[in-house]
């Protein structure tokens, strides 16, 4: 009797393990398609490298509303994360006037993003801003030298790369330095290069590692934490007629008529002016 029950337990364990292995096997590591949300530090990482004098000056010129309030005691974190103005109307976050979040700030935002993969491109369609990044994987290289100078900077830069084994490695150059790196106001220069390494680790997960190179503002490369994209539940992005999510992603356009004329006027600034006085 005891032997029989032991056998049953062993068989159950084997079956469960096989099912788990099968589930793991049921994904193509070179297919990143889907609707995902990112988790991880809201900047590149908490470990900000030492900044150059120009980097420090650029950081101090940016007045964010996110992070802990300026003047609060440090708890071991980089002072760049403790710089928030007390009320939003005292800040100068470019996104509050619907300027593009730019890269990498938008990628670091936890709102859903859809990855659409074609043979030569990975498209990232972001719910917030309802905007697009094109990550080229058709053999081209990122522009450099005169080509880059002629193209000039772009809010989302110019991105190209290729598969290295089962990791998609992308590089972005030519970033517009008016957009912040993150919600905390860390700056970037137009010389910035950012490497992204995407590895699908399961049916519903992709890991992302990033490294930011910007010798003008940071004395060392800024290496990210491991960021994880988790697939959004099917029922949350499928239209059943009741939720209004007709297209999976909603139209979260930052429209100045909504954000600036309405939200800023009625809430962000009106509630902020004079607060605490």
């Amino acid at each position, binding site marked *: 009797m005891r032997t029989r029950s032991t056998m049953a337990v062993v068989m159950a364990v084997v079956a469960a393990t096989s099912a788990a292995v099968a589930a793991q096997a049921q994904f193509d590591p070179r297919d990143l398609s889907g609707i995902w949300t990112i988790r991880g530090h809201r900047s590149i990482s908490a470990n900000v490298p030492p900044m150059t004098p120009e980097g420090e000056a650029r950081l101090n010129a940016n007045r964010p509303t996110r992070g802990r*309030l300026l003047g609060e005691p440090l708890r071991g974190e980089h002072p760049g994360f403790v710089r928030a103005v007390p009320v939003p109307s005292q800040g100068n976050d470019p996104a509050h006037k619907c300027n593009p979040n730019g890269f990498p700030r938008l990628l670091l935002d936890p709102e859903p993003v859809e990855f659409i993969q074609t043979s030569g491109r990975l498209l990232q369609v972001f719910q917030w801003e309802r905007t697009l990044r094109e990550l080229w994987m058709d053999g081209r290289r990122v522009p450099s030298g005169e080509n880059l100078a002629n193209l000039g900077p772009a809010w989302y830069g110019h991105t190209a790369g290729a598969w290295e084994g089962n990791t998609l490695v992308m590089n972005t150059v030519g970033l517009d330095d008016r957009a912040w790196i993150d919600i905390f106001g860390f700056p970037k220069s137009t010389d910035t290069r950012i490497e992204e390494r995407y590895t699908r680790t399961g049916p519903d997960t992709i890991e992302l590692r990033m490294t930011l190179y910007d010798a003008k503002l940071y004395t060392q490369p800024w290496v990210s934490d491991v960021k994880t994209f988790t697939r959004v539940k099917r029922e949350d992005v499928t239209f059943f007629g009741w939720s209004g999510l007709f297209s999976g992603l909603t139209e979260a356009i930052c429209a100045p008529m909504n*954000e600036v004329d*309405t939200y800023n006027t009625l809430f962000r600034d009106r509630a902020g002016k004079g607060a605490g006085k």
Partner: protein
Amino acid sequence: MKRQLTLLVLLAAVALAVPVAAHHGRGQTFDMKKQVTLKGTVSQIRWQNPHVLIFIDVPDAAGKVVTWGFENSNVSTLARQGYNRNTLTLGQPVTAIVNPAANGEPLGIIVKVILADGREIMSRERGNPVD
């Protein structure tokens, strides 16, 4: 040791719990330690991003009506909880509990809405995060 590990796991879970709608730092704009209960009727619904804005007309003891506005999460997050632009209708009597603006303006951030039949909807703790 086990308790320490559990605590560590819990702390890690809290640290990783990133709000879905996270565009708007607000510092000391709103008094998050204070709650105001508003009884009135819905007078305006702006079902839009970045945040859904709802206004209600609230009569005071002397009968004077003050229009209060409160912000919610975004369209997408509310949709995933089953709420849409017709969840509330103009003229509907409701009770709203909000964290009020620190400067005394009749503005706030949603805590929850209580309908006439006692149902609680759009609770910030249950799927209507405002950040």
